[in-house]
């Protein structure tokens, strides 16, 4: 009895914490106003940490490394740990290399729905074109210029088959976190540290 009480209160507390950022502090924001807030980030690099919670695993996989962004469509993600990996996106093409395993792979962004969803939202925001998000997502937003949250639900069937939702939080034109809920039940959250403008 005592145990279940603890459990229930635990759930309530965590729910409150989870929604506090949404319901507690941020007020609904019309997506039409986003372009005033998200005006485009300069070329920059930043550190990131990422957590993947996979149904297969009892504990999350944690990644860290650096990101690099150059307008309009260059994006690099260099993972340092736990396994070194370089992901370079140039235009529509993605190159993934694993230096330790000496393998290199190249593919079109559109062939990997998960990556496509993440990259599309990332680029639209960094380039200061939040209006483009509506091309493939249903967009909801909360907050203001100091702190905003966006919830993106895929519109197209192909994307919706793999992605349940994406949530992005940020301040002015910077992104702080990206979360992705997969239809499979897997989840990831990437947190971006302070950006260094180039």
């Amino acid at each position: 009895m005592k145990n279940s009480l603890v459990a229930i209160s635990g759930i309530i507390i965590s729910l409150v914490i989870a929604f506090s950022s949404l319901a507690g502090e941020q007020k609904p924001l019309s997506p039409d106003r986003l372009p005033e807030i998200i005006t485009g980030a300069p070329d920059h690099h930043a550190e990131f940490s990422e957590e993947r919670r996979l149904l297969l695993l009892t504990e999350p996989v944690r990644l860290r490394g650096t990101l690099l962004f150059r307008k309009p469509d260059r994006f690099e993600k260099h993972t340092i740990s736990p396994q070194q990996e370089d992901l370079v996106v140039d235009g529509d093409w993605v190159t993934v290399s694993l230096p330790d395993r000496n393998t290199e792979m190249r593919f079109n962004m559109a062939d990997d729905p998960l990556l496509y969803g993440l990259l599309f939202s990332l680029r639209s925001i960094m380039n200061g074109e939040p209006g483009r998000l509506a091309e493939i997502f249903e967009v909801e937003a909360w907050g203001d210029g100091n702190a905003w949250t966006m919830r993106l639900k895929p519109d197209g069937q192909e994307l919706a088959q793999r992605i349940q939702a994406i949530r992005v939080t940020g301040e002015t034109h910077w992104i702080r976190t990206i979360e992705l809920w997969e239809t499979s039940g897997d989840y990831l959250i990437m947190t971006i540290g302070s950006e260094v403008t180039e």
Partner: protein
Amino acid sequence: MKPEVGRFLVVLAIASVIGGIVASKLDFRADLSFIFPDEVSERTRFLTDRLSDRAAQGTFLMAIEGGDEAGRQELSLRFSRALAGTGSFDRVANGAGVVAPDGFEYLFENRYLIGPSWNPDEEFSTTFMAESLQGSMALLSTSAGQLLRRYLPADPTGRGRAILAALSPAARPASQGGVWVSRDGRRALIVARARAENFDLVRQSALLGEVRQMFEQLPGSDGHELLIAGPPGFAVATRDRIQMDVRILSVVSFLLILLLAWGGFRRPMLLFLLGLPMGIGVLAGLAAVQTVFGFVHGITLAFGACLVGIAIDYPLHVLAHAAPDGDTAKSARAIWPTLRLGAVTSVAAFLPFMLSGFPGLAQIGLFVATGLVAAVLSGRFLFPLLCPTVTHFPLSDRLIERLRRLAPRLRLPLLMLPVAALAALGFRWETVWESDLRALSPVPPDMVALDRDLRSGLGAPDVRYMIAVRGDSAEDVLVRQEELRPLLSRLGEEKNIVSWRMAADLLPSAAEQRRRQGEMPTSEELRNRLADAVAGTAFRSDAFNRFLADVEGARTATPVTFEMMASGDSGDLITPWLSPRPGGFTGIVMLSGLGEPQAVAATIAQAAIPGTEFVDLKNETERLVQSFLDSSVLWLLGSLLVVQLVLYSGLRHVAAVLRVTGPVLIAVTATLGLLAGLGIPISVFHILSLILVAGLGMDYGLFFSRHGGEGAITYRATILCNLTTATVFFVMAFSSIPILHGIGLTVAVGSFLALVASAAFARPVG
């Protein structure tokens, strides 16, 4: 309107109607199958199969050249995507992305029954599973591991990857920036397979044009070149080059006939009339071959078109012999016996080929024989109707008289020619004959080189050695291949072979599959082992329930049979390696990296596994080409003999026959000697050309011996005939198609020598 003009229009109308009908019925083929004998031995069947492999027919091998490395990679990516977007191809690969072959899903479903063999102590052991999980764990954090995430719950031991690895070629293409490149890194490589409905030449040609256009329209394609090989590239390039050569030849022939018709005979109308008997001959030949064989081989047409050489002589003779009064009908009547004997002899020369066991030779024989009969008949009966009179003649009498006096002085040097020729032949005897199959192919040599380069870049070099395994059923063959496996492993350990590929590596025999089933752990046992392997990792204990279910399913399933696999999506993966044959099944074991082929052959023979045989494809090809050449030489001798008999029955004097055939023999041997002297390997096309030369030479000789008394007239006629023939074939000798080059050179040189020799040994006038 003159009556002959009306007649001409009628004839033209009839000819074009018949031509239209013939053209609409024609079925052309352009592969190498024409050299294969009717009765194919089991060994040569592998060759015919390989040469007419349907799947290979639609495969475009492409390379992007020029620019810098990054530019080529970018283009390769864009281009592949554009190709895939057309929907005309069922597979486009350039090394980018993760491409599992069609039918892989079926293999994955049956992954524990089929694929490379596994060691029962390892595959399902706790240790192996724990190791695999550790490897997977590291990959899960990567973007590259996203695909793995999907398959992992069902396949924690990576069995799917093991099967994929067994499918990919032993030598992987080199890769730059995730895109396939040639060994030297200077070409980006792309393979595309057309959908089956695009296999015919017309569609392939259209597709090739679309592909090129698509490439040129890609942004950034400037300064880059797209090279296309593979069967579609071959077929189209060959056709285009033949068309170009034919166009050049047509223009030259047109100018030549124009010169003759207008400048020589002052009758522009002759421009059409001179070619008429030849045109009728070609139509008749095509119709005959199509009717008898049901298709016309490209080579038959190329060679048969050489009818030009003989057929145009008929109207020329009729014209030139009309010199006394300009009446062509009268001259046609006068020279008919000679014309007829010449034609009958030529037909007789090609007749033996019709009886040969090689459909290619038989087609050429039938084509030429029918064509000649039709041409000589139209020369005799139709031509005078259309061109009743002639008033002017080319070549002045003075010039001809001079040549006539010069001719006999050439006797001695001409007699020396065969001696020199035989010496040259003897000197180079070892290398005189062409035994390379490629030399018979109409494909231009630079295309062959490109194809070989691209193939080796893609890790699919030409395979030379293999083991044929036969059996009454597919199961039989698979069992025998499994018996062979320890032997192959031993040969591998002894460094006598580097790798092999066979059907049994992908699809084990039913017996082997049942053995595997017997060695799979029970559901309970596997669950326990898996629990041990998962313990201590970050994986959840119930993460791999699908794996447990799949293994249990495999343990109790009915074994996969050849029929099941061949009829599904995965059919393309197995049928090239194992296929039904009359009276059973045959599988092939491709061997690569042989140290000592003889040792391997001996080992295979020693093992004496029933139905297995070591095959050296290069030897087989050479043997086949050699036997084709041998039989054509034999038929050449046969036709020379027939010719003597026909001539004797016409001339009734041994001396007269000798006077006609002597110069021909000189011309033929001298031409052979010249080819040998120039280091040109003599192929079956040279031999066939020599028969044409013999036919032409006999015509010259016959006219000299029967009409020599008519003075300048015969000289003019034969010189005109030969000038026309030699010029056209001389132009052909510059063709980039090896076959046309060979025919052109041989006939140009041979026919000219035949003329000179016939003139030199002609009966003195008066």
